[in-house]
């Protein structure tokens, strides 16, 4: 398939997944805040956009942070921006999407626009809107499964989705870390259990966790979200599945190292297989998450240069000194 098309479908899915995860972030924080002192600053810190936020808002009030994360067009990672970029990418490659996939992405965008039109009411009580964002994302994922051929395009879409999800699950864990840090004495308290449950709920993981571990303990929750092999939002699951799709694309056996990108995947997978939760806590959860996010960013860059990068081509015509602009390929991309 065309490099540009592969790039677009990869980013289309990353943006859909990103929008869903921003909705999850806000939702978990909303739950954690109720009945306690609302803390919204960690949310902005965890998404890495604090500089942009300070420039436009200043105070970390509930309303400011929600507006920034949900509807601010100047924030490239707001739900509105993500929906817009996802649709823009989809529109660029509409001819390779199934009709129903395009329609579900278009509807996603229209729903977010609709929320934007009633932003004051949504900011007062965002829950319903956030639910709708999550449901729309799930609809896109379901329609992708059911109507797009599971060929190269589908695998690129999947790699984008899984890498984004792994990155964001790690950030959700980080939010909890930021919030708890000043009150380490709460560990094991009732409040603590409520907060960890909210976190599991926000990743749709509560039931699956209960079945695996039963009681709620911080270490087990972290273990579940980082190291579980079967839960679809866990870091390890995402990395293993993304690696499988990548090897489908290259047509090589899983784990065989033929390029920088296959090498990075193999290394990250090995790390997640060999690391125990005690190792992670000894190292520091926050430090581990930082390292993991670096690895995911590294994978993203390697994927770009292996498949999407349109290097100028040596033409047979000697007189040709035209360099093809790469800007048109990256204009709808931003990375957090």
């Amino acid at each position, binding site marked *: *398939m*065309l*490099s*540009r*098309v*592969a790039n677009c479908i990869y980013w289309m899915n990353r943006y859909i997944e990103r929008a869903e995860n921003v909705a999850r972030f806000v939702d978990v924080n909303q739950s954690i805040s109720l009945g306690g002192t609302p803390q919204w600053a960690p949310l902005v810190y965890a998404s890495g956009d604090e500089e942009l936020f300070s420039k436009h808002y200043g105070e970390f009030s509930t309303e400011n942070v929600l507006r920034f994360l949900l509807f601010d067009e100047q924030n490239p990672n707001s739900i509105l921006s993500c929906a817009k970029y996802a649709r*823009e990418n989809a*529109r*660029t*490659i*509409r*001819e*390779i999407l199934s*009709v129903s996939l*395009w*329609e579900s992405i*278009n*509807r996603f965008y*229209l729903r977010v626009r609709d929320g934007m039109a009633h932003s004051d009411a949504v900011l007062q009580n965002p829950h319903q809107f956030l639910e709708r964002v999550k449901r729309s994302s799930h609809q896109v994922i379901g329609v992708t499964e059911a109507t797009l051929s599971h060929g*190269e395009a589908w695998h690129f879409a999947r790699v984008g989705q899984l890498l984004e999800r792994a990155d964001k699950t790690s950030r959700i864990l980080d939010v909890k870390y930021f919030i708890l840090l000043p009150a380490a004495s709460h560990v094991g308290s009732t409040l603590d259990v409520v907060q960890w449950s909210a976190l599991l709920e926000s990743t749709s993981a509560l039931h699956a966790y209960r079945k695996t571990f039963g009681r709620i303990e911080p270490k087990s929750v972290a273990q579940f979200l980082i190291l579980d092999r079967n839960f679809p939002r866990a870091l390890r699951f995402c990395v293993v599945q993304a690696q499988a799709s990548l090897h489908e*694309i290259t047509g090589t056996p899983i784990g065989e190292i033929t390029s920088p990108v296959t090498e990075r995947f193999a290394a990250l997978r090995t790390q997640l297989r060999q690391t125990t939760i005690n190792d992670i806590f000894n190292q520091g959860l926050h430090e581990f998450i930082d390292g993991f996010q670096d690895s995911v960013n590294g994978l993203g860059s390697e994927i770009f240069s292996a*498949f999407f990068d*349109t290097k100028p*081509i*040596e*033409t*047979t*015509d000697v007189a*040709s000194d*035209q360099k*093809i*602009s790469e800007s*048109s*390929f990256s204009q709808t991309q931003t990375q957090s």
Partner: protein
Amino acid sequence: MLEGYQRNGAFDELIDGSGVPRYRGLASRLNTLNFTDLAVRQKTAEEHLREKGITFAVYGHSDGTEKVWPFDVVPRAIPSAEWNQVERGLQQRIRALNLFLDDVYGPKHILNDGTVPRELVLTAKTYRPVCEGFRPPKGVWTHITGTDLVRDKDGAIYVLEDNLRCPSGVSYVLENRELMKRVLPEVFLGASIAPVEHYPEQLLKTLVQTAPQTADRPTAVLLSPGIYNSAYFEHSFLAQQMGIELVFGPDLVVADGYVQMRTTTGLQRVDVIYRRIDDDFLDPKCFREDSVLGVPGLMEVYKAGRVTLANAPGTGVADDKAVYAYVPKIIKYYLGEDAILPNVPTYICDEPAECDYVLSHLHELVVKPTNESGGYGLLMGPTASQAERDACAAAIRANPRNWIGQPMLTLSTVPTVIGDGLVPRHVDLRPFILYGDDIFVLPGGLTRVALREGSMIVNSSQGGGSKDTWVMLNELAT
């Protein structure tokens, strides 16, 4: 529902001069609906269009870059006997125009013997000297044409414009039909209407048939200028329907003497390019140097016969509005036949006597630039202000070659839903013609409707909408 309908003096496509429906079956099926129904259906249709993202972009429009395609639910019908005549007329015209292109870029007989003035052709901005001596596969220059037809007060159908470059609108023909079936299924009952759904198949066939001889299993692509182009929806729609790649300029590169596309697994050869960008932007090494939409070196590969461009570069000279005036003569010259479809009488400002006529009759003529499309730069004499007419006169005097004048036609009308009533609105018709091994005319075409009262400007960029067009196979016009 048709009861209170008032014609406005133009030819009406549904109701004749004595108030009797031309298609009784269609009229009685429309009459089973009331306005409440119709308003609901109209809303359903608009909702459907928004959800499907069937939109077009309007340059300089500030409210977002996309607008939903305005669609009217009352179809425009054409009796099949009349359609057969139109179809033959279009086939004749396309055959002659392709012979004309072959000739003016080849031996130039028609210019040498003065049938068409040499200067008029060679000074056209759309004449491409680079195409001289080149003959595209099978002599096909205009693979896809979208001829504009109008019906005047007298009931006769005229050719208004030929549109031989990158005509758009066919996707709306297909979408309009689909939409009608969804929102007004009962109106179809008992009617036999010529199908349009096979257009993508015919188009793909046309592209493959005109591939270079050397291509074994030809690969066709659609080259689009990108998502901000006003017709982008159509580009992606057609690429998807035909199952071919939609590419942008930077996706293509000239390597090893061929045009190739950049894929995740390396370069892949391209044999036929259905290009939806203008000649000017095709190749910065040959035409506009600042073009980033095209492919450097493309024209060299093209002239070596290693890639087909549809439509061929240089076709614009045959739809120049001054050359248009000569089309009946062109048909006679190459085919020895009289034109089946008449032209609108045209005054060429490049001819001094005709120019004087135009200048002294500005208040009753439509004046058009010879090389614009989309209704840009038009002067509607009768409704223009004196200042507008003066400015136009000055422009004509400064460069008469650029202008033509035509009598103001009264376009026919079709009942159209406006507010909560049916009122007459003026329409034109753009059939689509494909030329590969033979000439295929899609039954019907795009009916564009001017939604403003009294307006004759049907372009979507200027407030036009569209209707489904029915070639009626079993209902006789009365």
